[in-house]
């Protein structure tokens, strides 16, 4: 697998560091470019272009941290912030727009009511993405 453009989606979860490192490692081997994207999900009771200061601040913190992790790996990245109604379609759309060959997503190890959960976003991206998808799940412990 030699991707040329890698899209790394971060969400402020514990898995972000691993996801960015994985994306950078794959990019180094394949000499690919890396785009990091964070999606702010806007509820329908707000306009799509609503500026929510707390969300913007969190997004910048997450993306700053992701850029720092990438920099520690000697990896040049471009970070984008996307605001959308749904995270999954926004990631898929971003991948299509950029012509990404690979999407890298992270997954915290979560159990809901005793059952392991993939959440909403990952199943959607796996089903709809136009390219390969790599999921990086954090360790259990």
């Amino acid at each position, binding site marked *: 697998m030699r991707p040329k453009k890698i899209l790394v989606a971060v969400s402020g979860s514990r898995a972000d560091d691993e996801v960015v490192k994985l994306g950078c490692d794959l990019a180094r081997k394949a000499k690919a470019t890396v785009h990091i994207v964070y999606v702010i999900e806007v509820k*329908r009771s*707000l*306009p*799509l272009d*609503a500026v929510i200061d707390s969300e913007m601040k969190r997004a910048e913190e997450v993306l700053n941290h992701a850029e720092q992790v990438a920099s520690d790996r000697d990896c040049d990245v471009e*970070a984008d*912030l996307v*605001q*959308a109604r749904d995270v999954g379609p926004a990631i898929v759309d*971003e991948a299509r727009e950029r012509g990404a060959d690979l999407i890298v997503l992270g997954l915290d190890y979560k159990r809901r009511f005793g059952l392991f959960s993939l959440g909403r976003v990952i199943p959607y991206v796996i089903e709809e993405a136009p390219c390969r998808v790599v999921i990086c799940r954090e360790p259990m412990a």
Partner: protein
Amino acid sequence: MSSSNNWQPKLGDKFVRRPRIRLHLRRVLGVPGLFSTAYGDIGSSIYYALGIVVVVASGATPVSLAIAGIFFVFTALSYAEGTAMLPEAGGSASFARHGFNDMVGFIAGWALMFGYVVTISISAFTIPSYLGYFWEPLKISPTFGTAAAMAIVLILIVINVFGIKESSLLNLFLTILDMGTQILLVLLALLFLFNPAVFVERIVNYWPSTPNLIFGVAIAAIAFTGIETISQMAEETRRPQVRSPRALILTTVAVLAISGGLSVSAFSAMTPAEMASEWAKDPIAGIAHALSFAIVPGQLAAEWFSEPGAQIVVAWVLGMVRALLPLLIALLAATILFVATNAGLMGISRLAFSLGRFQMIPPAMSRVHSKFKTPFIAIILFGLVAVLLQVPGFFMPNLFEHLGGLYAFGSMLSFALAHLAIIALRVRKPELPRPFRLGWNIKFKEREVPVTALLGLLGTSVVWVVVVIMQPYSRWVGLAWMAVGIGVYYLFRWRKGISLRQAADKPEMSVWDIR
């Protein structure tokens, strides 16, 4: 030389903090998505509009709806030009702000908010009547009916504060089911009930007084509530300059055709007096009820087919239709109206956020919850106003038509300002790109002004004046709402030191890369 650690901003320093990151908006809607959302909003109002109009306009109901339909077309056309030109959320408030100034924009927006609040009240108020199919007290008891309506709005307030995700697929499914059922009703009514002589006789014999006719036209505008939806969703639409006008025209045609068909069906099913007395709050259920008596499966099957096998099958099918139609209407109407009530709450919270962003209302009203990320204050505040409007339902038997009058007050004022703004933009800002430019213009001081906007302005203004003069309830409640709003606007701007008319500082929009 001062140390950077001791640096403090001086009085009058102004800082604009820009996000470092490039920001995109994801526009996803196309014409089908816009149409299904808009029809879901507009198409839901016929479930109560027919009843309200017949209470006022009696035999002239089809005529009132037709005249209101013409105004609706003019308004839709003005919105088509405005939305294509200014594809931002805000609708008439946005047009008025660009065409005139912030003060006029606020008045249009505040009137529009009143329309939304009333739509929430009236949609929820109608649901118990349709659910009366399952438990009659919901329809016939003012106490149970009003309590249920208030509970519906309160539940939706909670749902919207939490911000539970809405399924666009479910909305699309409901819209298709709704349209399909309405078309089926119209076809069945034309097949089994329609008689041209009886139809005309019912119009003529129940013709109202002139004041009631005029008020009927005003009230009939409620059949077309929701036109703002497409405009409000322009920001989420791909290529809104092209797709919003298309969706508006498609929705206009669909709504007019189905509303016209349903009003003919209703007048074929029962007399205006029957509709006004027994089916005022659930007129579509009345049509289904009449059809269930008109369809006699065995008799019809024998008339249509001579083959015993075919007769059995057709009789079975007709029997199922007869049995299921009232049940389907009850469930579908309640569901559609529930979705419409929810849409009203979401619309009003978006509009409140937009007005807050342009510093037309105190930002506290559009504050976002830290955990749920929803404008919870706007949702709770305006939701409770909608509940308050329902309270007289416990003791006022004709609250239903008063709610119709309240809607006409807010929407006609907002639409009149929209038409006026479109005209003003033609005069003051002719250089603005107009991807959808209305034809049929007249020249005015070397500018071209659309005739449809002029006629729309005339029609909506006259109707608004009629409502204010003829309806004391609507007049005082509506004017009180406007007075409170204008008072808040004036005080807020005065305290902030912002001119009433000039645009306040807005958040920088240049960081947005909108796709």
